[in-house]
């Protein structure tokens, strides 16, 4: 399989008045063409920062990328100029955000916002793109597409707005779509529809998708591969088959167990909370909350260890059997 995106040893830090916060630490993963990769983890585990880094949308005043490379179709995105990045953003790589109400401009009509994509990436089509837009919205099951185009975002429901965001992402005919919690703000019924649409879009354009969510149910439904992140590190990378039956990292197991459908008189919970990003990482990041921690976990840093089935796990306990990777 051809790799479309390869992230190598990426680290992201934020310099604030409180000190240096490490949001992403030495993260490596790859995305194959046409693959759906799910990233899960609690808030504060670095999922969104990773996606923003790939898009080149981190605030340069505070964020720093001390090391790493992001290779997209042979080019290192971190080395490109802003102008070159602009050509890729919105056409080859597009993004759907969590809060469609915040991502759309409230004072510009939907049609104008959609046409903007053409203006930037395909100016020749601007004049006669109306019919194309209507058919695209109809494909995304938006009733009354003609009317919707004339509306302002605030006149639309949350699900409709998210559909407009997906339409915007589709217009660029991307190679890679990043969906950052695309359904978190929506009702279950709308969530199911939006997920269907993302699948539809993926089938139609053959694009790869990075799906960021904290809902393992969504991952189960959509993804081919899952990356579990904790404190900015990759703790488990796994093909979707097998992950739900026998996750290896204790954090993955805890996340799976904490789903409400696993309730049996008591909710399975993870003790404590995720430490903030200013706390230095010593030993295993998860050892303070881990039920299976060994004495060495608090001092010795675990490395990612590869398993026969292509998965990688960062844990002292379950990697005793595995083969050292580094």
């Amino acid at each position: 399989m051809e790799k479309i995106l390869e992230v190598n040893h990426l680290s992201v830090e934020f310099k604030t008045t409180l000190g240096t916060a490490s949001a992403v630490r030495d993260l490596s993963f790859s995305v194959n063409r046409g693959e759906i990769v799910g990233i899960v983890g609690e808030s504060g585990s670095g999922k969104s920062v990773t996606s923003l880094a790939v898009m080149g949308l981190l605030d340069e005043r505070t964020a720093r990328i001390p090391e790493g490379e992001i290779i997209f179709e042979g080019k290192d995105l971190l080395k490109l100029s802003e102008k070159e990045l602009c050509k890729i953003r919105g056409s080859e790589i597009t993004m759907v955000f969590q809060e469609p109400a915040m991502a759309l401009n409230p004072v510009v009509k939907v049609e104008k916002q959609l046409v903007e994509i053409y203006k930037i990436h395909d100016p020749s089509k601007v004049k006669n793109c109306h019919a194309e837009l209507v058919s695209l919205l109809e494909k995304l099951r938006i009733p009354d597409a003609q009317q919707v185009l004339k509306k302002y975002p605030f006149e639309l429901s949350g699900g409709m707005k998210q559909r407009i965001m997906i339409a915007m992402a589709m217009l660029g005919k991307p190679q890679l779509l990043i969906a950052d919690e695309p359904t978190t703000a929506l009702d279950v019924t709308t969530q199911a529809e939006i997920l269907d649409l993302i699948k539809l879009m993926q089938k139609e354009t053959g694009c790869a998708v990075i799906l960021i969510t904290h809902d393992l149910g969504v991952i189960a439904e959509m993804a081919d591969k899952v990356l579990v992140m904790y404190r900015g590190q990759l703790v488990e990378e796994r093909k979707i088959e097998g992950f739900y039956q026998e996750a290896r990292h204790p954090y993955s197991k805890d996340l799976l167990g904490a789903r409400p459908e696993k309730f049996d008189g008591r909710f399975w919970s993870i003790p404590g909370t995720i430490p903030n990003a200013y706390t230095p990482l010593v030993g295993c990041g998860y050892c303070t909350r881990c039920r299976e921690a060994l004495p060495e976990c608090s001092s010795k840093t675990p490395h990612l260890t590869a398993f026969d089935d292509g998965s990688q796990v960062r844990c002292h306990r379950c990697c005793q059997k595995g083969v050292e990777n580094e």
Partner: protein
Amino acid sequence: MSNKNSLIEIDHLKKYYSVSNGFFTSKGRALKAVDDVSLAVERKHSLGIVGESGCGKSTMGKTILRLIEPSGGRVVFDGEELFNVEENHFMDQKKLQALRKRMAMVFQDPYSSLNPHMTIGDAVKAGVLRHKIVPKEEAPDYCIEMLCACGLEKEAYASYPNEFSGGQRQRAVIARALALKPEFVVCDEPTAALDVSIQSQVLNMMLDMQEQMNLTYLFISHNLQVTRAFCDEIAVMYLGKIVEKGKADEIYYHSVHPYTKALLASLPISEPGQKKQERKIINSIPSMMDVPKGCRFHTRCPYATQKCRTEEPKLKEASPGHLAACHQI
């Protein structure tokens, strides 16, 4: 409806808002946020209210506690009538305030329900002093005890909300509500803003407190899986009306109303490869401003017949204790 064992009884509760049609017309249309809802919650039980956003769940919770003035119906709390709009009977303010300490509310967003200028301790203490739960000298110790019972550290007493994470704030909000030793707690999406792992911690704590303090919960949520696990009974709400209610497992596993079925079919699968039920729901939720005639779900229902378009179904028994409002039953 009346049951000796129920702590709170809600009879034909209505809350209408009038929405003006324009600047020059004085006449408005009614937005029926809660339309003729009857429920009863048994002592030490939890009743879950589920539905999509905008179906009137939160408005109902607030109206029951009279945080919003009702437009119709009657609510009886432990034998005392809080209000009866039809007979124009409203409990007088003094009595109501005394009763307030027995009914508490936990709001969804722990970021906006705590005053950022007040320490957590002061926030909890305010209610304790107002209702004279313990003598003034003992109040700080009592508050600390309460915070600890809800899983916070002693130091939380002197901290400000901004020092806390979402989960800790929600614990503080719950501690504040429970410090009044209430019997009835309305929880409006208490865990919607939290991560799954933290959600589990908070829900476990709420279950423990229910056991210790003999609490009765009205649990408002859009998450059917959480509600099924947490509650004894579930009522499903659609556009201001209850469309199905019954024991939690009965609703979860043997739902009869097409809307409940659609909600359940929309849930993500729990393991890959599982077959997802076919979702038969159409379109999105209509506006509260023009609720469809007849059965209000017929515009989205795959089984709708002519009867559904004209005649509004009443709640009827599908099996003992399991009610649903659908003509197909």
